[in-house]
């Protein structure tokens, strides 16, 4: 079954409101990646977190990796209609070099203008 849980599944916000999606793993992750998929499109890599407690920012997006490396979050400040899409977290376990990722179910963000 799914070992990386992502919540919420859907989120509707008014443009300008903030948005957060959370990712939780049942096991420790060696790193976590975040992808964005626009409606009808394909996943596109956003960022990767590797270190315990790491925080990275991309303009209005803030990504965090938990101290125990079992959870992560993506926070968008002041959403815009261009933020619409599905956000996936994807984690890698252990030291395997196959690059296999376990994807969360994704959070679909709708932004009302």
């Amino acid at each position, binding site marked *: 079954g*799914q070992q*990386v849980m*992502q919540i919420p*599944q859907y989120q509707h916000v008014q443009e300008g409101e903030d948005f957060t999606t959370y990712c939780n793993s049942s096991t420790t992750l060696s*790193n976590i*990646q975040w992808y964005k998929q626009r409606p009808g*499109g*394909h*996943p*596109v*890599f956003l960022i*990767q977190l*590797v270190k315990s407690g790491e925080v990275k920012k991309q303009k209005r997006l803030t990504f965090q990796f938990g101290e125990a490396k079992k959870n992560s979050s993506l926070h968008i400040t002041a959403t815009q209609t261009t933020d619409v899409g599905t956000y*996936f977290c*994807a984690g*890698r376990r252990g030291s*395997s*070099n*196959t*690059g*296999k*990722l376990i*994807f*969360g*179910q*994704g959070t679909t963000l709708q932004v009302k203008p």
Partner: protein
Amino acid sequence: NAGVTQTPKFRVLKTGQSMTLLCAQDMNHEYMYWYRQDPGMGLRLIHYSVGEGTTAKGEVPDGYNVSRLKKQNFLLGLESAAPSQTSVYFCASRPLRGAVNQPQHFGDGTRLSIL
């Protein structure tokens, strides 16, 4: 640079028919992956390859076969299609060089319906 190209983009099959989905990448990536995406399920790994001539099972391999005869191509086959295989299929690739933490590059997907 086309990146990752998937063909076909859409296909409708009847139950029991067979077909092959093609993924081609021009980035000289060693690793390639096939995923299926279903509503509420995220992306689930079907099969993957760490290099030419090698393949391995992922999370949901049953009913699918793959081949990687050339480094740039990764084929996904459905020998006898079933309605449960109706899905959007994504191919992805990533390089070996550098850390294992390289991002995956995805194709545009193949939307497959099995009637």
